[in-house]
């Protein structure tokens, strides 16, 4: 009687794979058992009903045994030889594991598997760790009992597999053991006192443990043709790639990006089913997938989804996912998941839906898609090769994605452009402001320092008179500002140079008369902004050269002068840029003519004098020196070509005059005396 019940239960389970279920119109007679007993038959059972199939199997087995016995009796002499041969072939198959047949390997595999179980199975270690983590606080005896159950179960299943029993029998044994363990949980003294949820956990873990260990031999077993079924369904789904949501009356909007992402999540979950080992874990994957599908539906229609919408959506997802070993996975779960879990609860519901979806796909016809036979056939045979909506949606989505990205980039760019534009506007304003300020200052300065413009006597003359050239310098100064960027105009440049020297002098002269030196410095700086880069480089070059010269002088001359020279250097730096190059270039032109040491000597004197005098700004000092120098160059001639003339660009003018005076060689005593005199005069004052 219990056997009968079991049979019944199993038959429900297999119903879902019965050919009669999915095909829409099949005669009742086709569905009946081949034996004619009145019950329904099943393709998995060669068209028999469960009972007749069992009988049939038993009969076959007997027949085989009988045959074997007969053969044995017949060929007694051969047996030894046969055995030997078999042994050899076993050895061979051991070396060629790819081609091994389970029947030949019974004896050989058994110890191998056991060792596998005990030592080299990383899964077992992992599971053990998990067990300790979850149930570690439970008592030792309980753990002992638990693993005893597990060992018994595994051993039993392994012997069954090794005996090459049909998978249905193994399934039955497994389910029986689940039940036994469940009963043990509920009744045995060790487990009884546990709370019910812990007992449920233990039951689940029991299943997980044994199934993970036995996965390799129970998943897609050799005795079945599960693999072929996998290939068939895979091929089928591939052929049906043109089916879209519209065909299925499913409300998934394939073009929406959000929906697409959710569908992807569902697909990923479904694909994950193949990567876990325990049936319960596989079920969990299905549940996750289905929940994602529910979310998709909710997103698409904005309300809770019903089964009417859910199933088509799931079919759609399965079609688009085309999971690996789909059929094997489903069969594995059906066979070895605890019935009580599979039949009930959310997992059971969703798994049933998945089975439905697979079954629908397997038996899909033109009618079930609400389309004409011809059209369906054309699609299936590939005559109509439309890009499936999903694919095109992907492309479209990709396009949209690209578009969005590009738009974002453009937005970013426009923002940057506005920033740049604002910046440039500000810059322009600044420039404008600066220009105005500059003009203002220039005009103010011009007003403050009115210059009388006088015609120049001779432009190239190197010996213009001070007073006369004073006016001319101003003109040339202006010219200089405009034309400085034309180095090829050497003549004019030369002129400018000369005038520059004059100008320097005259300007200072004027400053002394009218304006405070600070203003001049400011003026000079404003002017110095203007020159073009070429000029600038020119300037810097000139300056460096000047410095160099000064350094030279510092070392070549008396040490005492070094200190004295420093204020001059400062003044050099302060001197307006445009005059820098003039100085240098003038040096180039007039080098042989300039015995500038005189000025140096003079300066020494003035500096020493100045130290006691009230300290004014360097420019003023310089001015003083120039004035002094002018007086004294005539008297004392200390020609020293090494001495710098740059800082005394103003003096180059006088330097020009100097050569005409006969060379009185250095009279230092006089110099000292002079300085002494000046200091004494200072003291007096």
């Amino acid at each position: 009687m219990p056997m009968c019940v079991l049979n019944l239960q199993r038959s429900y389970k297999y119903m879902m794979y019965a050919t009669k279920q999915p095909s829409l119109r099949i005669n009742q007679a086709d569905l009946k058992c081949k034996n004619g007993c009145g019950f329904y038959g099943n393709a998995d059972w060669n068209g028999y009903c469960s009972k007749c199939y069992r009988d049939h199997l038993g009969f076959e087995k007997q027949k085989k045994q009988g045959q074997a016995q007969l053969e044995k009796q017949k060929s007694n002499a051969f047996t030894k030889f046969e055995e030997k041969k078999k042994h050899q072939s076993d050895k061979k198959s051991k070396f060629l594991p790819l081609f091994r047949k389970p029947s030949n390997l019974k004896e050989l595999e058994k110890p191998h598997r056991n060792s596998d179980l005990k030592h080299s199975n990383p899964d077992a270690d992992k599971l053990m760790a998990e067990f300790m983590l979850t149930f570690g606080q439970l008592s030792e005896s309980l753990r002992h009992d638990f693993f005893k159950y597990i060992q018994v179960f595994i051993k039993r299943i392994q012997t069954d597999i090794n005996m090459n029993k049909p998978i249905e029998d193994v399934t039955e044994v497994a389910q029986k053991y689940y039940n036994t363990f469940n009963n043990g949980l509920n009744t045995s003294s060790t487990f009884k006192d546990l709370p019910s949820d812990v007992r449920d956990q233990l039951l689940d873990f029991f299943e997980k443990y044994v199934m993970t260990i036995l996965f390799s031999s129970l998943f897609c077993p050799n005795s079945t043709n599960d693999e072929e079924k996998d290939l068939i369904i895979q091929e089928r789904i591939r052929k049906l790639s043109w089916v879209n949501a519209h065909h299925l009356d499913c409300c998934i909007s394939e073009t929406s990006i959000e929906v697409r992402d959710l569908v992807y999540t569902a697909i990923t979950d479904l694909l994950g089913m193949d990567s876990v080992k325990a049936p319960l874990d596989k079920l969990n994957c299905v549940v996750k997938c289905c929940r994602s599908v529910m979310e998709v539906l909710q997103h698409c229609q904005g309300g809770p989804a019903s089964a009417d919408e859910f199933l088509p959506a799931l079919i759609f997802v399965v079609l688009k996912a085309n999971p690996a070993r789909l059929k094997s996975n489903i069969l594995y779960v059906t066979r070895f998941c605890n019935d009580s879990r599979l039949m009930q609860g959310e997992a059971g519901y969703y798994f049933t839906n998945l089975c439905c979806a697979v079954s629908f796909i397997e038996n899909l016809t033109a009618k079930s898609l609400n389309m004409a036979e011809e059209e369906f056939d054309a699609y299936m045979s590939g005559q109509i090769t439309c890009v499936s909506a999903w694919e095109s949606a992907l492309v479209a989505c990709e396009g949209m994605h690209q578009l969005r990205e590009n738009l974002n980039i453009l937005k970013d760019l426009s923002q940057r452009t506005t920033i740049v534009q604002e910046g440039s506007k500000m810059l322009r304003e600044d420039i404008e402001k600066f220009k105005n300020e500059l003009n203002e200052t220039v005009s103010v300065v011009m007003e403050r320092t009115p210059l009388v413009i006088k015609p120049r006597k001779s432009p190239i003359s190197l010996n213009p008179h001070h007073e006369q050239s004073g006016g001319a310098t101003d003109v040339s100064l202006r010219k200089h500002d405009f034309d400085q960027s034309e180095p090829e105009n050497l003549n004019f440049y030369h002129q400018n140079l000369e005038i520059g020297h004059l100008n320097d002098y005259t300007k200072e002269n004027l400053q002394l008369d009218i304006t405070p030196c600070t203003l001049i410095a400011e003026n000079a700086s404003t002017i110095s902004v203007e020159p073009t880069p070429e000029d600038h480089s020119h300037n810097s070059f000139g300056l460096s050269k000047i410095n160099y010269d000064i350094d030279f002088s510092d070392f070549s001359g008396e040490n005492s002068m070094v200190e004295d020279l420093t204020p001059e250097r400062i003044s050099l730096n302060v001197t307006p840029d445009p005059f820098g190059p003039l100085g240098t270039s003038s040096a180039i032109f007039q080098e042989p003519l300039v015995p500038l040491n005189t000025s140096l000597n003079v300066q020494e004197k003035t500096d020493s004098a100045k130290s006691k005098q009230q300290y004014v700004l360097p420019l003023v000092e310089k001015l003083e020196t120039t004035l002094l120098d002018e007086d004294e160059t005539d008297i004392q001639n200390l020609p020293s070509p090494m001495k710098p003339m740059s800082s005394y660009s103003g003096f180059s003018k006088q330097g020009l005059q100097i050569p005409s005076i006969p060379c009185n060689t250095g009279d230092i005593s006089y110099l000292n005396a002079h300085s002494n005199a000046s200091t004494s005069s200072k003291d007096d004052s």
Partner: protein
Amino acid sequence: MLQLTQCEVISNIPVRVNYDLENMKTIIGKVVILGHQGVGKTSTCTRYVEKTFNRHISPTIGASFFISRIKVLDDYVKLQIWDTAGQERFKAMTPMFYRNAKAAFLMFDITSEASFNSMKNWVLELRRNVEQPMVLCVLGNKIDLAERRVVSRDEALAYSKTIGARYFEISAMRDQGIEIVFKFVAMELLRMSTKNSSATSLKVYNTENVNGVMASSSELEATDIGNEEIVNMSINSIAHGHTVPSRCC
């Protein structure tokens, strides 16, 4: 009339009974909802879920599957409600859903003759594939559209009688009579489990005596009757105080 093939087997298939710590019986039963597309399967479920599970059920999970725990006197009955897709094209797959089901709601739309006829097909399918005892409930939905009624109450009642089912009229929109259906099923399942020991068939509970009551009652009265049933837990008084003779076997 349906023929039960293996009566003695049936009594051996127990409704799964769990004993809680308080020694309170919890019966778990699977209930499938069958019916043509658009008869209101989902809205009925949603309505029921909304009313009773507002606090627990996360809104993301659809109403296609849910568990309802109903207390009947001292016992709990856990109903697992499985909604099915009603489209014709999925009809071939439905047997997967109702295997191991303990009860079935057969729904039709009283304003649609087609839905009533298709419901009849469902019943045939069910009979063909399920050999277990099952609590059958025929539900006529959309009584709020009474003026457009096509299937008369008498017709539905008569049919329910022939298949040995209980007939209810409900309105998912106005939330009429839904709760009573669930409670009825819960009680029936409880009775099935308690009667397991006896040799009596659990297949169907007769609806003979319901006829008069249902026919004369308005929809709202039907709800009252349902409540009354729940109060009366005696097996014999379930069908309004009348003994229910077993139909089959």
